[in-house]
C-alpha cells in the first residue's frame, strides 16, 4: 500500500519535471524504475491481514531446512511474546503466503500443526516460503510471518546452513549440535553422530568425545587442525520411517588472547626541545606476557584527540609498534612534532593506554631546551662579571689602603722633616 502511494507521488513529480528539462525527466524515469522494482520486491511486507487482525511483521530469524529432513516452524509470537500461559485461551491457525487455504492438516500429508508449531516431515524445496501464524480469541487477534528456506543437500548449499562456533586453541572446549530441542524433547536415548569433513569421528578417539545423552562434542587440546567443517546427525522416526536431522557447523579456532594490566614505562614527565625543531616522544607500554591487539594506545593534547586538535597535522601520532624483548611484549606509539612551537610549551600531552583489565595515563610537558642553554651561556658571563667585580673591588680596596699608608708616611716624613733641623742644630 505504502509503495503504491509512493509510486503515485513519483508520477506527479515526473509530470512536473518533464516540463522542465530532458535530463530531469530521465532521472525521474530512473526513479520510477526503482520505485516499481521496490514495489515488486517486498510483497509480503504489505500483506493486509484479514479482518481486524494486527500484523506484527516478519519474524527476523529465517528458518533454514535441508531437503529430505524434518523442519519445525514455531509460531513466533506464541513462543516469544505471549508465552505458553496464553495457549489455552487462544486459537492458533497457520497459512502459507502463496496458498489461499490453511496449511494442510493431517500427518498423512507430512505437514501438520502440533501445539504452537508446524511440522514438515520431510521438507522439500517446495515448502520454502512465508508462513503466517494467526493467534486469536474473541477480543484479540495478531499475526506474524516467518520465512522458511529449504536447501538441497549439496556442497553449494552448505554455507546457508552453517552455524559458526569458536573455540580457543590449546584448551578443551565443546561444540554443540544446535536447535534439536523439538526432536530430542523427552528423549533419553538421543544418539548423535559427529562428522568432521564428512568423516565419522571415532568414539574411542581421545581427541573427541561425544558426551552421551547430550548434544555436545568435547574437543581436547584444540589445535589449528581442528578448525573446519563439522556436522552432527541425529534421527527422527515418523510413521515407521527414520529421517536424518543434520546440523552443519564451522569451527573457528582462536588464539587465547591473554590480557595483562598495561603499564606505561616512558616518556618522562618533561621533555626538552628547542623551538622550531622536530621532536618525537615515544610512549612505551609494558604488557608482560599479554598480547597487544586488544590494548589501545593513543596520545591526547589537553584532553582532546591529536587528530582533532591539529587539523594541519603539525603534531601527529606515528606508527604503532608492537614488539617483544626477552619474551615480554611492548607497544609503542610516538607523538611527532614537526616542528615544536611555543604553544606546545603550554599544552598538556597525555599518553593513554587502555584494555579491559586496566587503564593508565601519563602526562608530559614540553620544555624549551634553549632556556637551559641560556643558563649555561650566562654562567661564564656571570663568572667573568664576578671576577671583574672582584678585581675591581680588590683594586679599589688596594687603592684605599695605599692612600692611608702614604698619609702616615707623609706624616712621619713631616715629623722627620721637622725634627731634622733640630738634629742639625744639635750637631752644630
Amino acid at each position: 500500500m505504502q509503495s503504491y502511494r509512493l509510486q503515485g507521488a513519483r508520477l506527479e513529480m515526473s509530470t512536473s519535471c518533464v516540463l522542465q528539462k530532458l535530463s530531469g525527466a530521465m532521472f525521474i524515469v530512473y526513479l520510477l524504475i526503482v520505485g516499481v522494482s521496490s514495489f515488486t520486491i517486498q510483497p509480503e511486507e504489505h500483506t493486509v491481514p484479514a479482518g481486524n487482525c494486527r500484523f506484527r511483521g516478519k519474524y527476523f530469524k529465517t528458518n533454514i531446512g535441508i531437503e529430505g529432513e524434518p523442519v519445525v516452524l514455531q509460531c513466533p509470537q506464541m513462543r516469544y511474546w505471549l508465552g505458553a500461559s496464553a495457549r489455552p485461551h487462544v486459537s492458533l491457525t497457520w497459512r502459507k503466503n502463496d496458498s489461499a487455504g490453511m496449511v494442510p492438516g493431517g500427518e498423512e500429508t507430512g505437514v501438520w500443526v502440533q501445539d504452537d508449531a508446524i511440522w514438515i516431515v520431510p521438507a522439500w524445496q517446495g515448502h520454502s516460503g512465508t508462513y503466517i501464524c494467526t493467534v486469536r480469541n474473541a477480543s484479540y487477534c495478531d499475526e506474524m510471518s516467518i520465512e522458511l528456506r529449504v536447501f538441497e543437500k549439496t556442497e553449494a548449499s552448505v554455507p546457508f546452513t552453517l552455524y559458526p562456533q569458536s573455540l580457543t586453541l590449546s584448551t578443551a572446549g565443546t561444540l554443540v549440535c544446535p536447535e534439536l530441542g523439538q526432536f530430542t524433547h523427552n528423549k533419553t536415548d538421543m544418539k548423535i553422530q559427529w562428522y568432521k569433513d564428512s568423516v565419522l569421528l571415532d568414539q574411542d578417539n581421545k581427541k573427541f568425545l561425544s558426551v552421551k545423552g547430550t548434544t555436545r562434542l568435547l574437543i581436547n587440546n584444540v589445535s589449528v587442525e581442528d578448525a573446519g567443517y563439522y556436522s552432527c546427525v541425529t534421527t527422527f522416526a515418523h510413521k515407521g520411517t527414520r529421517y536424518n536431522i543434520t546440523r552443519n557447523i564451522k569451527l573457528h579456532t582462536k588464539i587465547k588472547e591473554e590480557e595483562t594490566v598495561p603499564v606505561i614505562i616512558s616518556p618522562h614527565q618533561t621533555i626538552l626541545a628547542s623551538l622550531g625543531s622536530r621532536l618525537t616522544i615515544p610512549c612505551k607500554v609494558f604488557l608482560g606476557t599479554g598480547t597487544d591487539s586488544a590494548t589501545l594506545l593513543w596520545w591526547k593534547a589537553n584532553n582532546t584527540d591529536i587528530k582533532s586538535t591539529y587539523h594541519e597535522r603539525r603534531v601527529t601520532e606515528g606508527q604503532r609498534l608492537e614488539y617483544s624483548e626477552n619474551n615480554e611484549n611492548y607497544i609503542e606509539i610516538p607523538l611527532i612534532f614537526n616542528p615544536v612551537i611555543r604553544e606546545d610549551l603550554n599544552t598538556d600531552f597525555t599518553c593513554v593506554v587502555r584494555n579491559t583489565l586496566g587503564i593508565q595515563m601519563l602526562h608530559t610537558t614540553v620544555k624549551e631546551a634553549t632556556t637551559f642553554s641560556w643558563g649555561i651561556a650566562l654562567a661564564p658571563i656571570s663568572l667573568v662579571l664576578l671576577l671583574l667585580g672582584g678585581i675591581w673591588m680588590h683594586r679599589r680596596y688596594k687603592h684605599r689602603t695605599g692612600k692611608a699608608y702614604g698619609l702616615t708616611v707623609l706624616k712621619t716624613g713631616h715629623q722627620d722633616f721637622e725634627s731634622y733641623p733640630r738634629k742639625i742644630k744639635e750637631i752644630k
Partner: protein
Amino acid sequence: MGACRCPTSHLISLLLFLFPSETACRPSVKRPCKVQAFRIWDVNQKTFYLRNNQLVAGYLQGPNTKLEEKIDVLPVESHAVFLGIHGGKLCLSCVKAGDKIRLQLEAVDITDLSKTQEQGKRFTFIRSDSGPTTSFESAACPGWFLCTQLEADRPVSLTNKPGEAIIVTKFYFQQD
C-alpha cells in the same frame, strides 16, 4: 612461569595503587573514551542477538549470523567495565526492583557513563578470567553474574546461583 609472573603483577598492582589518579578513567571529559568491540559467546556456543529489544542468547545459522550483537566494552578501571551494544548506545545494567534483580538494556551512551556517580555503578561489571573463559559480576548487585540459559533463544539475564546446571555464566570474550 607462574612464579615469575606473580611478583610482576604485584608490582603492577602496587604501581597502580601508588598512582591512582593516573589509572582513573575520565569518561566525562569531552573526548569520548575509546570503546572496543568484543565478540561474546557462552561455553555452549550461543551468541547474543536482540529480539523485541531484549538481549537473548541462541544459535544463529547461515543468513541469521548477521544478527549477532557484538559487545562494546569501555574499561572503567582495573577489571571493571561498562558493557553496551549498538555502538555503545544501549548499555547493560543491574536494576533492583523490590527484592527482584534483573538485567536491563538502557538507552544511554556508554561514553556518558561515569563510575563515580552512583547511577554509573549499575552499569559496571567486574570481569574475572578463568582459563579461556570470562565471567561478569555486577558491581551494583554483588554476587549476581551475567548468564544465559542452557536452553537456546532465552533472555540473557543475571543469576546469583552460577553453579546451577541450567545456567551458563562462562563466556568466551574476545576482541573482534
